[in-house]
């Protein structure tokens, strides 16, 4: 899946480590999600959406979509 997590994170001035701490995951996980190499679980996707006050589909979109 593609996502705009990196843009949203940078808009808040957060580091990858800060975002990882907010989400309760490792920094490597945030890096992999931002690169589109790791699809987060549904609970983690919901936490990401909740953290940025938006819907999951606002952050993530299918590769072919």
């Amino acid at each position, binding site marked *: 899946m593609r996502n705009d997590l990196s843009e949203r994170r940078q808009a808040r001035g957060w580091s990858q480590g800060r975002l990882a701490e907010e989400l309760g995951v490792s920094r*490597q996980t945030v*890096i992999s999600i931002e690169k589109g*190499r790791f699809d987060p679980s549904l609970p983690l996707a919901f936490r990401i959406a909740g953290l940025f006050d938006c819907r999951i589909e606002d952050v993530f979109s299918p590769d072919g979509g």
Partner: protein
Amino acid sequence: MVLRSVAAGVTGLLTAAALGLLAGVLGEPGQFWLRAGVFAACTLGPACGLGWLLFVAGTTGPDAVARPEETVEQLWWQRSAASAFLDLLVVAGLVLTALAVTDLRLDAVTVLTGLVVLGLADVTVRLAVLHRREA
């Protein structure tokens, strides 16, 4: 955490010493110290691993993440372990077939040691490759 690490180390030392003593007692007379020393030295690493499993593995340090089950590292571990398991099954099957066809007889210790080493090396390499590819 420091106390747990010390407990793990002590457990490893005691376990290795006990195994060494057992091997010395059960071995041929006159080779007690040789067998005890070699067995203690060879089992020290795995014994410390056992101590780590008992006292450290189930705990978390100050830098631990809140949800380790949702991390990419957990995915890497699951992929590596599952693939290594399949590799072991394939290798064991091939070796078994070869032994059956050739009617060779191998020492069980040799075969099991090979399988354990292969499994550990397989998981280690797969984890390293995944980490390097993703990092």
